[in-house]
């Protein structure tokens, strides 16, 4: 390796960069040694990705210099960076699903001769994989691989091009706990081979398990460089956020209610290809309770949520709702007052009290080109006083907006400006305000804190927990086990559309739940 002692793997000095006149990086210094895993910690928007994108040749710095192994470089493209042995694994993988592992690994490699000898290529890929303890078959189609395996192919691709500085952008966000451990093992192998690994993350526990040193960024500046063994988690959080984050509001035990608010029995839903996406799903949620649904994205959560919102047809099974204290539905309900809402229209479900926090907040949660007011009235505009005889009341919409802005502390995006200019956290607050102001019986929240920075995460969790006091039941779909463990009163694990297990808080355990999420057995691997 380039580990000629004393030289730094990466030395970025005084790097500044602005986008649209907004400063993303201000005079940042960043150093990584050979043979270390160096974590880059910061909230969303702190400049971690921008810094690494400059290092990997995707952007050019406005100011500052970059040295790789002591040599001054000026990358004009990711290709230049790779020639200097610097490569990056992005959050969205850049693989061709229809190609085999070997084809993907050598794709775009300038060293390829015109006439391809696949058996030799496959052999060389297999060798590279074996050298780094990456378990893969070069002949398999990438489309058939799991997310964790695909990520390893991305790393393999860089290694095959002889990358010596590897940047991993939030690599764990898509992995199960056991896959995370495997990734850390690979990172350790890279470290031992003398390479430099840069790990972008905002999860402190992961850094501790994998990294030697950490550079902390906040608002485009470097605020500290520390050895991980010398710094406490509290200090890391404080440095990253710049203030202390209050722990989520403590909550009282849910009031006992013998009958559930939402009761789902034997629910079957198919996806757009007609394949079974949700397979005999049974669950019930009680008043003032949070039911967590854990699972890796793509295991039926989307179809489940859409079926409960009335957007996807239910193949079979029933969904029943009992409005707390609502014995008034005698005509349509059964003896106990529960209403069968299976197959109801989206509008019908809104009116009866099922609220949704959709997972794709910018594309589905809001109409991003409309202003805050228009987005806030989206679930109630057809009622008085927001509209009368088919005509909207602008003043009523404005009053609603002013009230909810205050109640939910929504900041930014004045009248007539599109809601898309708000931060992710504020957009989520717009959605929460809209959904919760309808005093729903059940809130179905899909990944409500995904991609938000820590302050906003705490805020969203507080709002959801606060809502429980009014007797609302919450279904929380998430893949963040930490969040599910903090929030849920009960936890269901979903894999391939099936319920793999159900847990009470006393039995919450990362290993067990994680194994079930990836379809393994509860005994752990």
């Amino acid at each position, binding site marked *: 390796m380039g580990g000629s002692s004393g030289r730094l793997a990466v030395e970025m000095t005084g790097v500044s960069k602005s986008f649209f006149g907004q400063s993303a990086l201000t005079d940042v210094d960043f150093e990584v040694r050979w043979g270390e895993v160096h974590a880059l910690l910061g909230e969303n928007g702190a400049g971690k990705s921008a810094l690494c994108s400059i290092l990997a040749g995707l952007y050019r710095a406005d100011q500052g210099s970059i040295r790789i192994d002591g040599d001054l470089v000026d990358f004009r493209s990711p290709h230049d960076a790779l020639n200097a042995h610097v490569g990056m694994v992005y959050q969205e993988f850049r693989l061709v699903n229809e190609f085999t592992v070997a084809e993907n690994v050598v794709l775009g490699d300038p060293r390829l001769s015109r006439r391809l000898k696949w058996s030799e290529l496959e052999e060389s890929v297999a060798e590279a994989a074996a050298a780094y303890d990456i378990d893969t078959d070069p002949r398999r189609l990438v489309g058939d691989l799991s997310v964790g395996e695909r990520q390893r192919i991305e790393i393999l691709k860089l290694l095959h091009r002889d990358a010596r500085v590897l940047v991993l952008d939030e690599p764990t966000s898509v992995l199960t706990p056991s896959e995370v451990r495997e990734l850390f093992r690979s990172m350790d192998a890279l470290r031992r081979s003398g390479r430099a690994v840069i790990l972008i993350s905002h999860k402190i526990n992961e850094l501790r398990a994998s990294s030697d040193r950490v550079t902390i960024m906040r608002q485009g500046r470097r605020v500290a460089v520390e050895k991980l063994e010398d710094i406490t988690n509290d200090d890391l959080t404080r440095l990253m956020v710049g203030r202390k984050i209050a722990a989520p509001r403590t909550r009282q035990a849910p009031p006992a209610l013998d009958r559930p608010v939402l009761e789902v029995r034997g629910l079957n839903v198919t996806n757009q290809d007609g394949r079974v996406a949700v397979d005999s799903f049974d669950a019930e949620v009680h008043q003032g309770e949070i039911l967590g649904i854990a699972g890796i994205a793509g295991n039926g959560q989307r179809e489940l949520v859409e079926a409960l919102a009335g957007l996807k047809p239910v193949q079979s099974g029933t969904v029943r709702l009992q409005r707390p204290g609502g014995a008034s539905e005698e005509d349509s309900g059964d003896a106990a007052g529960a209403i069968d809402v299976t197959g109801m229209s989206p509008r019908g479900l809104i009116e009866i009290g099922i609220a949704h926090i959709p997972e794709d907040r910018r594309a589905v949660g809001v109409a991003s080109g409309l202003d805050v007011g*228009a987005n806030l009235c989206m679930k109630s505009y057809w009622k008085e006083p927001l509209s009368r005889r088919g005509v*909207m009341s602008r003043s009523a919409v404005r009053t609603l907006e002013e009230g909810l802005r205050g109640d939910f502390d929504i900041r930014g995006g004045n009248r007539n400006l599109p809601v898309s200019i708000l931060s992710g956290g504020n957009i989520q607050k717009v959605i929460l305000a809209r959904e919760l102001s309808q005093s729903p019986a059940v809130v179905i929240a899909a990944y409500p804190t995904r991609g938000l920075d820590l302050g906003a995460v705490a805020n969203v969790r507080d709002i959801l927990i606060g809502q429980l006091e009014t007797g609302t039941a919450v279904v929380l779909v998430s893949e963040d086990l930490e969040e599910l463990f903090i929030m849920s009163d009960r936890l269901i694990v979903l894999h391939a559309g099936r319920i793999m297990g159900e847990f009470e808080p006393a039995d919450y355990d990362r290993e067990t739940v994680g194994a079930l999420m990836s379809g393994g057995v509860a005994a752990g691997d």
Partner: protein
Amino acid sequence: MRRLVLEQRATPSRTFSLALPVLSAVGALILGSIPLVLIGADPIEVYRLMLTSAFGSTRGITDTLTDAMPIMLTGLAAVVTFRMNVWNIGAEGQLQIGAVTSAGVALWLGDGANTAFALVAMILAGMLGGSLYAGLVALPTATWKVDEVVLTLMMNFLSLAFINYLVFGSHSPWRDAFSISFPRGQLIPDSSRLPDLSGRLNLGFVITLVVVFLVAWLLKYTVWGYEYSVVADSRGAASFAGINQWRMIVTSFLISGGCAGLGGAVLVGGTLGAMEPRALTGLGFTGILVAALGRMSPTGVIPAAIVLSAIVSSGPDLQQIGVPAPLTVVLQGLILVVIAGGEFHLRYRLVRAGSPARQAHRESAP
């Protein structure tokens, strides 16, 4: 060497968006001077003549406004669906069918009818005809997601063949029975003719303005308009809000077709006085140009239609100084090219390679 690359703007530039129609017109005039110079005409002189011809006299103004009327309505028809990302390019055919139905009702009512009643009936018949003709496309589009561009385009050929058949290919009531060698449309009775306001300008212009403002009001102030804006912005959000998108697509098609059909009615009841196939072509397509020049705003079609009408109606006067009339069509085309270019720059800008991309912008966003 620094490459230039395109980058998407965070939000469309606001000042630019207001100045765009003016800049487009200026840009088109500059580009348009190239063919003028090539044929040896003085561009300044030509433009001055166009201006005085279109707006320099009462007759010029009323002629310009009269010719603006149908394209204002087909422009409005385009705006009503385009804003929702539904592409009804069938205003051409809907206008033709509107002309057929309005002329049909006027001819059927005959001479003896009460004027006010006959006018209302003729106008409504035109709107309804256009509306239903659009509805034929709306249903398969909304129900089975059949491509509305292909359908409306095909329907234009169908309606063109139909109006030609009515006058040139048959002895239908729409054909003037006494026109043997040069078939013409049958004139409708005077009781169904729109009263003139000044010169050729007739009552249809007032009706047109009322409809334009009515549609603008519908879009901006009603529940229907609110639902329309949500569907236009995000189909996903609209689904989650329980908005019936089938209904929105069908209603916008019906309104769109109604506007175009009204265009047929005001032609038949006004300047033409008959369902005259030769005068009923090209108006729908010009409407798309009007909608683009009017920045997809319902009221924006008013100035846009007037500008385009002015360019075309000055054609005959230009011919007197030796500029061929088809050159006005070239000018129209140039305007479209310039607008399309300007529209592009509204959303993108040129930057040096290696500068920001969208991804980074997202990260640095407040």
